[in-house]
């Protein structure tokens, strides 16, 4: 199999071209997934760009993105394939007058023509390159997870009536999880694991600068520094990267060019979604730490 990337560094550079700022871990794992032909299980807090990673990889590869959104109650007929029952019935009806045998009809109605492909099968059968995104895999029941196993390890789907369909090319596969439950060992074993956490300050600043191009360097710096301070508090829900970006946009629209306490506190509700978190952050940001520090002479 010819590989898609030369080195982790090239993954990083190409992702940057499509405005996705990765780090060593992300680039390394994407590179490795391509070389080993393995799916990537991406985990991390909400709003850190897990889904976006798959989209961006699809973009740089010029591949079609096939997305399977998982939800409770997802089953085979929604994820893999389904027989087009109505069309099969019609076919049998139409056959009634003709003189064809039972075997003929049977092979006929269980042929490709009557198969409705769903995302997983579609990704396998696609002749052109695809990126398969299985989003929020932690939402399906543990039993449904088993549906994915054959695809993830062998890139094939077995249909009893048709036989086994094997992938024409190994697609890049991303699974995302918000970690609301422990995924099964079998699933984890088949994947490379990538944890995307909140970015460090420098990277977040770069992200803000890329996503909000009109912002000044100085404001972006302030924004990310305040966000870092807030993330250090014990909160119910820390601000995510997308919330940081929203906040930066808001400040820009309000015409703020240097954040004062009042600005920060007034717009905190964009960063934080729980009242108790907002109250705590307000208290912390306006608390006067200089008074609590003894023994520092102030020269004036």
């Amino acid at each position: 199999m010819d590989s898609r990337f030369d080195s982790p560094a090239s993954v990083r550079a190409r992702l940057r071209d499509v405005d996705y700022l990765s780090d060593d871990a992300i680039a390394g794992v994407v590179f490795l997934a391509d070389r080993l032909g393995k799916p990537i299980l991406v985990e991390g807090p909400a709003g850190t760009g897990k889904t976006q990673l798959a989209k961006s990889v699809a973009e740089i590869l010029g591949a079609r993105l096939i997305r399977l959104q998982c939800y409770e109650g997802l089953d085979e007929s929604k994820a893999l394939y389904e027989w087009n029952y109505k069309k099969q019935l019609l076919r049998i009806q139409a056959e009634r007058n003709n003189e064809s045998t039972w075997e003929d009809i049977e092979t006929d109605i269980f042929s490709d023509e009557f198969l409705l492909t769903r995302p997983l099968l579609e990704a396998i059968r696609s002749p052109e390159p695809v990126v398969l995104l299985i989003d929020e895999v932690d939402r399906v029941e543990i039993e449904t997870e088993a549906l994915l196993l054959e695809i993830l390890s062998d890139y094939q789907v077995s249909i009893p009536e048709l036989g086994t369909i094997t992938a024409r090319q190994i697609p890049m596969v991303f699974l995302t999880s918000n970690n609301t439950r422990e995924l099964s060992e079998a699933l984890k074993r088949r994947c490379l694991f990538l944890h995307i956490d909140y970015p460090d300050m420098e990277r977040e600043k770069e992200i803000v600068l890329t996503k909000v191009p009109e912002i000044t360097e100085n404001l972006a710096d302030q924004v990310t520094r305040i966000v870092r301070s807030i993330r250090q508090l014990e909160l119910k829900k820390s601000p995510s990267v997308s919330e940081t970006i929203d906040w930066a946009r808001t400040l820009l629209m309000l015409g703020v060019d240097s954040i004062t306490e009042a600005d920060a506190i007034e717009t905190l509700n964009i960063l934080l979604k729980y009242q108790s978190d907002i109250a705590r952050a307000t208290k912390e940001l306006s608390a006067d730490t200089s008074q609590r520090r003894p023994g520092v002479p102030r020269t004036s």
Partner: protein
Amino acid sequence: MTVTSESSMLDLLTGFIVELRAAGLPVSLTENLDAMQAITHIPIEDRNAFKYALAATLVKNNAHWRAFETVFEVYFSLRGPGYALGGSDESVQPEDDDTAANPEAAGAGTGGGGGEALSPEQMAEMLFRALQKGDEAMLRALARQAVTRYAGMEPGRPVGGTYYLYRTLRNLDLDTVLERLMAEARDDAPAPLTPLEERLEKDEFDSRVDRLKQEIEAEIRRRLVADRGVEAMAKTLRKPLPEDVDFMHASREELMGLRKAIYPLTRKLAVRLARKRRHGRKGPLDFRSTVRHSLSYGGVPADPKFRYPRPAKPEIFVVADISGSVAAFARFTLQLVYAISGQFSRVRSFVFIDGIDEVTRFFEGVEDIAVAIHRVNTEADVVWVDGHSDYGHAFEVFWDRYGREIGPKTTVLILGDARNNYHASQAWVVGEIQKKARHVYWLNPEPKAYWDTGDSIVGEYGAHCDGTYECRNLRQLERFVEILE
């Protein structure tokens, strides 16, 4: 790579994986093979990429990352360009293999670059400037210099890395440096700093000082590994995973880690319990609904409807010993139970040492469970005579005051080590509770081997419970909560 270095690489990796397993990480055979395949694509010289490649194949749970990182640092710290000095230091670097073989040479080699002639004052000044500017390369060089100078490391000396770390940090006196940094920041500002700016400056310097500390720690570890060998160091540094940390013997740092780990855990549990409740078995035929739906088929009951069972949510009584030895355990259990309180019709909590007090009121209308638990620890009236655990008296009072409120839907959780200081056990109370309540469970944070030794009388109480469980760590606590209904 030559053949020999390849096979030595395999040996190293095998040792590395054995150590990961010893630290408690579940590494399967397939994952082992994946890792071996992965490193053929990534050169070891690219240390970061190498680390992430190993992590991606071997670590499938983010909580295990720290444990992985520690083992990685030990096993691979002497490989790759870890010793390269950046910034001001232009001296020739010793070869990696030499460094491994000869720690003194390493120390001299790294120290000899730019710093040997410096006086302590000059060095402190350089450190201050580096921290002020956030000059990473300089900080790394200074960290090395500081270890050479202050740690007083001698080969073969049987002391832990923490001792060296302490000595180095004491000499650097980072608290004073931090104050000076803040003072200068204030002076440099055109206007007096607002509290917000003050805080941001402080966070920035804090994070730089943290980075310096990490560098120093890494440097000490590198030298210790060179001195003592990889396996020995890995063994001394081995720490339990967050879910395996013993409640009763957790260090401050481990408790912090536990506090962080418990939040995602509660979320997971809540989802799982809610799911379990919804996906109950099908119940009996719902006659009325079936007939109603049969109308659209001309009276033929083609589409039978079933009644889905809606199990009543249980009411939970938590009765917790909060005397010194088991306080941490009570704290975590209370936190867990309240975090999933949506799964119960009601949660009431009682805490005792030798007296007992209801503390439900502290949790009502409070969003932050940590605050409530703090109030429990400071305000609850739990001392009757001397503040030594007296389960017997506490239970007696509990029965008197609250016994009649226990009903058939109540599940009672008793938390404690049942070390009764040789008082009367009053185990009949537990028996009476069991008769009225739906279930009575006893959770004991002590290892099972210690039960019923000394003044522990958990067996006596356990006879009246529906189950006694050893609950020493988050893993066991989680397993218990899952069976709770």
